[in-house]
């Protein structure tokens, strides 16, 4: 375009781009504004057209009611417990495993790495039934073990992420530290871990989001009501015996979304990095 250097043309172009992007952002954010608004309204706001947003009085009591009347506190704690243990297990197994795969040369190291990677290609739904039967045989259904323990044995994505990260650290650093008398454990803790902090953070954020939002695993493994996670709590709040009104469901949904949104806003940088490494290089 010859007129691309014309400042006036550039301004118009910029404005048009912003217009499209703002419109898109409204479509993305709009439903959440509805959610937040309706969680603060009385019953019957769902039958109003055009919809009214944030019409006073704002009923914060909806939140109190959700928190008190159903066992939402317990569900939140259950979700937090599962998520934190998964994040912890995923991080340490990926860090140790990635270090081993990146730094040690032994027979079959590549075979192990590619076997782990290959599990990413198998659709998760293929594995549900054998895994379920396995946990049933060892009598651990209706506990959090089937959800948490696999993370302590490493996930393909985590191993891949940390191996790539540790591979990029120069070998000379390792050798120099080794000659200076550092033990492998010390090298791992003092050199590799600090340098791999960003990738570990990306992994942790991803695990947090996946497990906090996960519905499938709790759905098949957890049956006792007091062990429900937030997703299950919300799922059963919708129907079944309670028949909760819409505004309470919305308040519960907002409670559930707050932690992920906070984690995302705090760790945006790592999030994007995680997506890009897993996406582009994978």
């Amino acid at each position: 375009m010859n007129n691309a250097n014309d400042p006036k043309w550039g301004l118009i172009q910029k404005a048009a781009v912003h217009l499209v992007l703002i419109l898109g952002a409204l479509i993305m954010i709009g439903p959440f504004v509805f959610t937040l608004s309706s969680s603060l309204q009385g019953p019957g706001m769902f039958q109003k057209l055009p919809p009214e947003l944030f019409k006073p009085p704002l009923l914060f009591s909806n939140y109190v009611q959700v928190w008190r009347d159903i066992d939402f506190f317990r569900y939140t704690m259950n979700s937090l417990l599962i998520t934190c243990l998964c994040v912890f297990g995923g991080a340490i197994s990926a860090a140790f495993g990635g270090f081993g795969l990146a730094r040690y040369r032994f027979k079959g190291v590549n075979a192990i790495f590619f076997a782990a990677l290959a599990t990413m290609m198998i659709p998760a739904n293929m594995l549900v039934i054998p895994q379920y039967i396995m946990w049933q045989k060892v009598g651990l259904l209706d506990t959090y073990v089937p959800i948490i323990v696999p993370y302590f044995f490493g996930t393909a994505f985590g191993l891949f992420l940390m191996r790539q990260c540790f591979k990029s650290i120069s070998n000379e650093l390792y050798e120099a530290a080794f000659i200076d008398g550092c033990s492998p454990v010390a090298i791992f803790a003092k050199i590799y871990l600090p340098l791999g902090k960003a990738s570990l953070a990306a992994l942790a954020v991803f695990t947090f989001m996946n497990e906090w939002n996960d519905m499938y695993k709790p759905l098949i493994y957890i049956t006792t009501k007091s062990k429900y996670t937030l997703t299950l709590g919300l799922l059963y709040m919708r129907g079944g015996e309670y028949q909760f009104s819409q505004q309470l469901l919305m308040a519960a949904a907002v409670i559930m979304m707050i932690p992920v949104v906070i984690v995302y806003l705090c760790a945006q940088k790592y999030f994007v990095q995680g997506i890009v490494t897993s996406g582009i290089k994978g």
Partner: protein
Amino acid sequence: MYNPPVFIGLKNYIEVLKGPNIWYALRNVSFYGFIYVFSQTFIGCILAVLLNQKIGFIKTYRIAYFIPVISPWIGISLIWYWLYNPQYGALNYILSFIGVGPFNYTSSNNWAEVVASIAVVTIWKGVGYVTVILLAGLQNISVELMEAAEIDGAGALKRFTKITIPMLSPTIFMVLILGTMSAIQAFDPFFVMLNTSGTGVIPDRFSVFNTLIYDNAFKYNRFGMSAAIAWVAFAFVALLTFIQKKMESRWVHYE
């Protein structure tokens, strides 16, 4: 499982392939995947190109487009259930101003309308993710290449079709593969958008592979049937990935 498993040969597979459910699932997944994968990639490309214009506020836009990605399906289904309400939903209300509709969305009896409605929510939820991947791909394209083409007199459109698209094609290819795999494995979107009573019963004609696997194993206790369906679904994924891989050399450009 209350009885020890007994070897029955291919009986489960025959029963799966005879019944109508697997064909409903195949039809629904194909239609769903077709709409979802292509629209999402297309919209993602447009957004990525727009965000790549060095216009400022990229961080703000990225937050806005990414909020649906990080939100749980169950929460999203609650709000879309209301947006999709044929009588009181905001969507029919908004569409009435441009003279479209009204639609019944997920409460329709028409399978295509139901599946398409679910696909729209999935696109809305996933487009931010795709945009971030594509944007990273765009930023990898060297500025010198673009400038050289501009000096040689290539217009914006020509630069886009002759440089941006070929250079971005590996990323687009990956986005398509990832989308196809997630479409075939869809569970949450169908489960939460159709299971509004919380009882877990989804009408057979709206089912997909994963809801069939879930129903057979955990509702009817037919693990064998369920595993057979999983293998059929896997064969479908493998076939599609194989076809996409074959097509790859025709349009994907590697440096």
